[in-house]
């Protein structure tokens, strides 16, 4: 009896610990020394339908290209303050309409514009075309970019990360300027947590998958 109780307690502790520490990957990727002080910093990420590894291989997530050129599973990035960030998002995922079309509008970037495969984008109607795969949104900075999806009918969709450029993808580029030092959370506003209530559980509610921090340092 005592043994069963101990096993039950162990299972509960394991479950709670697993919930509280759901395998945060990566750590912080540091871009502060990537360029001479005051020069723009290039930040490249890719997003896809399944990370393929770790405790949640089927979850959607991001990889970031480190200054050393390696793809790293991390959503916490250290950036220099008051610096222009030239960001490139390689979007391999299919899409859906936005729950709130407000996030279909590009805001907070330099010029309030982005480009998708070289074409200017100021807003995207997520209820038409391929929909939006994800958004890159930093609420505290008013920064929002809809990441236009690849067609869900595509026969060349990347299954698991890291995705090679031979797979169908959209390349979204934009620039923004970091503010003063501080931690600024970013997240996706597409309910992309497959299989979870309203799509906002799982990767949407776990640090290190569809959200993270811009750690801006002086």
């Amino acid at each position, binding site marked *: 009896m005592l043994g069963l109780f101990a096993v039950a307690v162990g299972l509960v502790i394991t479950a709670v610990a697993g919930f509280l520490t759901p395998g945060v990957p990566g750590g912080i990727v540091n871009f502060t020394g990537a360029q001479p002080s005051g020069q723009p910093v290039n930040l490249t990420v890719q997003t896809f339908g399944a990370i393929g590894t770790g405790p949640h291989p089927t979850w*959607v997530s991001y990889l970031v290209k480190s200054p050393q050129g390696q793809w790293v599973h991390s959503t916490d990035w250290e950036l220099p303050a008051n610096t222009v960030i030239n960001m490139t998002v390689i979007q391999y995922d299919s899409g*859906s*309409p*936005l*729950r*709130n*079309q*407000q996030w*279909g*509008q590009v*805001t907070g970037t330099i010029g309030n514009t982005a480009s998708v495969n070289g074409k200017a984008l*100021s*807003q995207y*109607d*997520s*209820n*038409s075309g391929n*929909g939006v795969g994800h958004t890159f*949104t930093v*609420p*505290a900075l*008013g920064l*929002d970019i809809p990441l236009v999806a690849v067609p*869900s009918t595509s026969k060349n969709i990347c299954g698991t990360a890291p995705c090679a450029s031979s797979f169908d993808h959209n390349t979204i580029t934009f620039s923004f300027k970091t503010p003063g030092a501080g931690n600024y*959370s970013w*997240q996706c*506003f*597409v*309910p*992309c*947590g*497959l*299989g*979870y*209530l*309203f*799509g*906002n559980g799982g990767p*949407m*509610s*776990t*640090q290190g998958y569809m*959200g993270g921090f811009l750690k801006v340092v002086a």
Partner: protein
Amino acid sequence: MSPQNSKSEVGHLRRIAVVWVVVSVVADLLFWFLVGPHVPPGRMTETAINNQRTFNILFVIALPVLIGVWVYLGYAATVWSAKRDGAPESVGGEAARTNQKAQVWWMSVTSVIVILLAVYGFYAVVVEHGSGGGEGPNPVWSPEGAIQAETAALGGGSSWTPGHVLVVQVIGQQWKFTYRYPGFGGFESDQLILPNHTTIAFNVTSLDVIHSFWAYQLSVKADANPQVNNVAYTETKQLGSFVVRCSELCGLWHGSMFNDGRIVSQSDFTNWATSTQTANAANTAHLPPFAWTYVPDANGASGGFYPDGTFTPYSPSEIYGAKSPAS
């Protein structure tokens, strides 16, 4: 009780009463004039002013009670403390427990205070319309012109001009509040800008889980529930910035669900709203028609209902995002 003891007791009470009255009056005046104007939530709206006044009145009533206890305690400890030489207590024991006069005074004073608080409470609810919380989908009261403004907003024919009620829709979503302005074509913004000296009709709803819209300097707090329109009224009184926070634990980024807002002059507000209406026009065209609530439909990866570009109106609700499965 001997006449000498009775005379002595009256002397004690008189001294305590004098000290209590003097200290209480000084403390109340100092609080009312020096501290009171700075007590949260401040004076940015009529609701905030009412709440600040209510707090200050309660404090001014409570302060003499607190001081009365302290003065009595201090006096008793100083004058009536037991002597080390074994002298009997001058007051206490059976005489204190059966002091009817003291009991009657104590019960009368506390009863009067409680009754006064109840009367003031009714006044605050009836005349000041409560504390600025959400009034629910069918408010029992509304400021002059609010119903007309809200009806016009729902019908799509709303156009705000200074001096009229401004309808602002607050939309909660994991994890950001956004704001729709039906008086300016129904554009949506992540900024909450309000004109000064204007009655605001907040209509609060959610697209997913329960959030709570809390602009504490405005003294407005209303739950944002999916498929519920929670109405809260206030009137802006002072220029300045305020903070909006979500006060309902709503998931991973709940702690990041806040934004600044501003009360600006009516002309500045009109300029901001018209320029934002123009700048957002292309995106506003893709928003659903203005409605009190929006169906947080199963969509995206969780539901797989891909849009066909047709919105099916759910009067007075409308669908944000994908088409309803039932349509």
